[in-house]
């Protein structure tokens, strides 16, 4: 593998870490959702980078990332819908207060 993919992979890693940090530390549920999207996109970036510059270049990775984007859009729609429902019933979007599973 040539070093051409390294910048893409580095960018994806940075993006993934930012997303992970956000998902684990932010108190607002909306930002947590956004962070999850960041991580997904880092993964997409990897897929595309490997499909173009990997050992066996091909279209598979790019098509796969298209599917992922679609699924992520659906997932975000569902997530936002749950969050809105939650906000209506509890009046908050603070992740720290979402511990009713334990109680």
């Amino acid at each position, binding site marked *: 593998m040539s070093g051409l993919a390294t910048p893409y992979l580095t960018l994806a890693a940075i993006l993934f870490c930012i997303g*992970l940090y956000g*998902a*684990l*530390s932010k108190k607002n549920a909306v930002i*947590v959702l956004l962070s999850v999207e960041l991580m997904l996109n880092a993964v997409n970036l990897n897929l595309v980078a490997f499909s173009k510059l990997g050992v066996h270049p091909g279209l598979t990775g790019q098509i796969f990332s298209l599917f992922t984007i679609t699924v992520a859009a659906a997932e975000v729609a569902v997530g936002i819908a749950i969050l809105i429902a939650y906000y209506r019933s509890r009046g908050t979007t603070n*992740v*720290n207060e*979402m*511990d*009713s*599973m*334990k*109680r």
Partner: protein
Amino acid sequence: MVSAYSQYAWLIPLFPLLSFLILTAVGRQLRDAGAYISIVSVFVSFVLSLLVFWERLGGQVEDYTWNNLQWLRLGDVTLTMGFEVTNLNALMLVIVTLVSLLVNIYSSGYMHGDERINVFFAYISLFTFSMLGLVISANLLELYIFWELVGVCSFLLVGFWYFKPEARAAARKAFIVTRIGDVGLFIAILLLFWFMPNHALDFSSIHNAFSGGEMPAGLTTLIAILIFVGAIGKSGQFPLHTWLPDAMEGPTPISALIHAATMVAAGVYLVARTFDIFAASPAALGVVAFIGAFTAIFAATIGTAQNDIKRVLAYSTVSQLGYMMMALGIGTAAAMTAGIFHLFTHAFFKALLFLGAGSVIHAVHTQNIHEMGGLGGRMKITAWTFGIGALALSGIFPLSGFWSKDAILSEAYRHNQALFWIGLIAAFFTAFYMSRLFFLVFAGKPRSSAEAHESPMSMTLPLIVLAVLAVAAGFAFTPFNPWLGEWLVGHTEGEHANWLVIVLSNLVGLLGIGLGYLVYVKRTVPADAISSRAPWLYRLLERKFYIDELYQTVIVRPLQGLGHLLTLFDVYVVDGAVRLASYAATGLGRAGSRLQNGQVQTYGLATLLGLVILVLALAGRRFINFG
């Protein structure tokens, strides 16, 4: 002749067992009927024993042995249970059931009003069952089981009034001290099991092995001594005698039944039963004879300085058991007969004395003989019967104690002069402390304010029966009528009337009584003649030669110290390790539960950390493999 009744002898112990089971199961509901159940069951056993005894008296009935109940299989060896009826057993059966019956009747009066009276009768029934089982056991292991059972009953009954701390302490002491002896007996049984041909433990095999001289001499002596250690513990011989006087904390009928007539005689019975082993080892016989003789004189001297009516009798029991052991230790068939005969007569007159003492205690509510006095006029039956018992114990012609003591002394005279003189001196002390006891309690002026009056019929009737026996039982075996000897050991070795011994033993007895009369009635000899001149001697006797104190410092204290050390070890090391483990587990659990806080981000972090550790581990492994 075929035995008609002997084969049903196994029924004899079952009736008291039945009574024990009934009283334990429904004793609370029975109230006053409990005593009758116990009395009736023992009465049935007594009648059966009499039938067996009568049948064997008739003549040449062979010994009946049934030893076929398979109990335990160990490889090729089968341990069996069964029963055996010999002449010795039949005699013991009658003694045990008769004394037990009388004590049961007596107790129904003595214990009247005690709210745990049915528990009391349940224990007595259990004891009678165990004692009868011990007597008819066909092998040593079975005997050992019943041996421990009577020990348990003794423990339960000594501690019957468990709310008294002394009774609790006495019960513990009785149990622990006799256990020391029991360990000896158990080792002896193990040795026998190991070395006997076919691992047989039944008495007929033991008889064959040891009388045939098949066993090595050293081993025989060892086994004999170990069996004797068991007998020492049970029969209160020196140096394990200390529990018997303390056991007087129990109810008085118990002292009469267990600690005078039957259980303490079990040691003597054991030695007689395994006599073949002792007969094969002169050294063991010597030990038996000298421990017995020493105990006889040792306990008799202590008896002269005790002030508790029951303790005087207890030391007297220890001393008389010493007599029996001494007789067995002489080793001839005639001497053994004499020892068993003394057991037989002693059971009656000592039970009589204890029951008489119980009657006195019942009347004046004290056990200190210096607080009694003048009871003879008000308690005529008790005084007369007690007097007969005392004379019999002192060995005065023609009461039963005279004949049995004379049989022992004349055998001792023929075979071992030293034993004879020791026995004679002990007889003097015996007569002296009995006359001291009798005169202090029944003669003179009353020294207590209590209104003493005669005990009820249920208590005086057994006294009268026992008094008759204490007079008459002696004629079973006299120098002029030696049938008991023939009957018991199977061959005629007629006792020779030894006039010197007869005269001497009577003289010594009368001398002791006379001295007691002079000191405690006429008061021509002051009672403190010795205690004022040699206070150390009196203190020595009163403190029982400081044996208890010696054991306290030499054995009990160090063991208690060791116990404390072990407690510390247990608390800090053993418990510490357990607590450490439990703290670790709870700490881990607490940390885990803190993690489970319902925050999805915490779970995410934990998952991430887990992943990182996993990756690091995998990478590290690869790194190490390549490195």
